[in-house]
């Protein structure tokens, strides 16, 4: 009975005792979740259209952030530094398509996956060789202060006394704009339509005149762009160093929850992971397990999820005819 009281009822009691705390945790969790989602979207864009599981997405985020931060450190204005970083991501997309993917056309999915692991190591090493591995700051004046709601008239009127990080709101906002933008792009633009066609059937899309090689460049450039956006937002929260790549691996459980082929799925998966891991950390982890549960919670959740719905919440069920 003691066990039940401590581990199952106690935390809920705390939540009920102080509801604003729950709200605070949820908002912070959503902020983290959208950060994971921004990385996961890059995975989805590539996987959906080419069935390549791009292990290098985390490294791409790191690389985009590193170029950006290194330019800032050299005293380049933020808009030029950003443009440079974005340009590098597009060049990287071209290079990966030409050098890595094209020679592997028609190969097994696993070979392509292995190739992206290679790309990941290369990008990490190349970035460090260029700019050094020391932690860098990526601050371009994006809002990242804490908001004490009680200081505002609306907070006082509601009697709400919590702390919200501006960077969390920023992540949520950017994430939503990103999803909306990608939706419009895929739905209405010619290239977006072509990409949907390619995602659906390679042979058919070739027959209606879509050049596949050019499409690979587009998807890699697009995921490079999302990596760049993710890097910029992440910069408000953390320093840029190679361990960013490990943080980006949180996108994997997000993908397992959301499904590998759905952009909204990536966002919803990100929200679920972000909120649940922070809730667990706040109400179970810190008081009962000594903290640091965010390191593993997402992966355990994903493992459980795999038992029930391996294709994810929004992924396509892959049925192979034998």
């Amino acid at each position, binding site marked *: 009975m003691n066990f039940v009281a401590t581990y199952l009822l106690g935390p809920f009691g705390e939540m009920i005792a102080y509801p604003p705390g729950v709200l605070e945790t949820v908002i912070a969790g959503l902020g983290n979740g959208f950060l994971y989602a921004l990385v996961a979207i890059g995975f989805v864009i590539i996987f959906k259209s080419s069935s390549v599981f791009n292990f290098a997405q985390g490294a791409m985020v790191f690389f985009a952030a590193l170029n950006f931060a290194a330019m800032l450190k050299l005293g380049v204005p933020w808009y030029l530094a950003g443009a440079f970083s974005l340009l590098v991501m597009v060049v990287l997309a071209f290079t990966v398509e030409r050098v890595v993917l094209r020679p592997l056309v028609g190969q097994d999915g696993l070979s392509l996956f292995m190739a992206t692991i290679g790309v990941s190591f290369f990008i990490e090493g190349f970035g460090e060789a260029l700019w050094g591995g020391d932690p860098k700051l990526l601050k371009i004046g994006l809002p990242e202060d804490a908001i004490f709601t009680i200081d505002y008239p609306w907070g006082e009127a509601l009697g709400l006394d919590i702390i919200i990080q501006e960077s969390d709101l920023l992540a949520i906002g950017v994430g939503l704009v990103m999803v909306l933008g990608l939706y*419009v*792009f895929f739905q*209405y*633009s*010619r*290239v977006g*339509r*072509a990409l*949907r*066609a390619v995602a*659906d*059937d390679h*042979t*058919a*899309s*070739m*027959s*209606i*005149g*879509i*050049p*596949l090689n050019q499409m690979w460049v587009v998807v890699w450039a697009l995921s490079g762009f999302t990596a760049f956006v993710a890097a910029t937002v992440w910069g408000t929260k953390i320093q840029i160093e190679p361990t960013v790549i490990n943080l980006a691996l949180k996108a994997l459980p997000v993908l397992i929850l959301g499904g590998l082929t759905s952009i909204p799925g990536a966002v919803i998966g990100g929200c679920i992971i972000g909120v649940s891991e922070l809730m667990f950390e706040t109400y179970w982890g810190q008081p009962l397990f000594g903290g640091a549960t965010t390191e593993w919670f997402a992966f355990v959740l994903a493992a459980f999820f795999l038992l029930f719905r391996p294709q994810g919440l929004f992924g*396509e069920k892959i049925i192979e005819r034998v």
Partner: protein
Amino acid sequence: MATARPEFTGQPEPDTRQVKQDLAEVLLAVEGVTLRFGGVTALTDVSFDIRRGEVRAIIGPNGAGKSSMLNVINGFYHPQEGQVTWKGVTRSQMRPHEAAATGIARTFQNIALFRGMTTIDNIMTGRILKMKAGFLEQMLYWGRAQKEELAHRAEVEKIIDFLEIQAVRNTPVGQLPYGLQKRVELARALAAEPELLLLDEPMAGMNLEEKEDMCRFVLDVNQEFGTTVALIEHDMGVVMDISDRVVVLDYGKKLADGTPDEVRADPAVIEAYLGVSHGGEASQPVLDGANGAQRS
């Protein structure tokens, strides 16, 4: 490059087949094409031509290289030897998107539709090369993009009416029965307003009624739009009825080439299809009707 489509009048056209095949220019010529996959030779020194405005059938037993031939024509496969001349331009290698851009559209033996999309979206993809509005205009659905979208939509509606698939306009194609999927695939190919339409077994797996419908559509496309058609088909009745000229492949080699009547009477063709009689007094086999592609 896009030829204007004549209005549908509902009047039957006079049969102009014989005249057509003698006078028409050569639209596409295949010369000495040899295609190998590793040690397997799929096509050996195959030459034939397709003339503007005709219905050209490619027939042969299973494994004869018919589909490979279509894949060479639209650039999926690149032959080791020989060349393809398309509208006067000779290339040793054609890429699929170049073929599509210059007016070759096709359907597939195993339906290749975008299964996640609705019928109308599938057909719209056929017009993807014809969209000209700029990126920003399209993203904002503004100015030229809006006008263009409506124009494409109208064109697609015409095709939907023509192929009588109004009822399934908004159905995801994955849910459609097989015969209708074939029809949607034809619609997507037509949406590109092709000069040459390649059909890989358009009637395979259909019942008699569906076959008759499909025959009618193919002939209508050919006669009303003036689209040149090259098709692979196993049903001999269909082939003999609708094609102007027939080329026969067997084991990757060209066996015969000519009008349906010439081909039907060719002893080599009869041998390939029905085998040689070793019994001595067996009656002369005749290629006719639906005794399809059986190799004895």
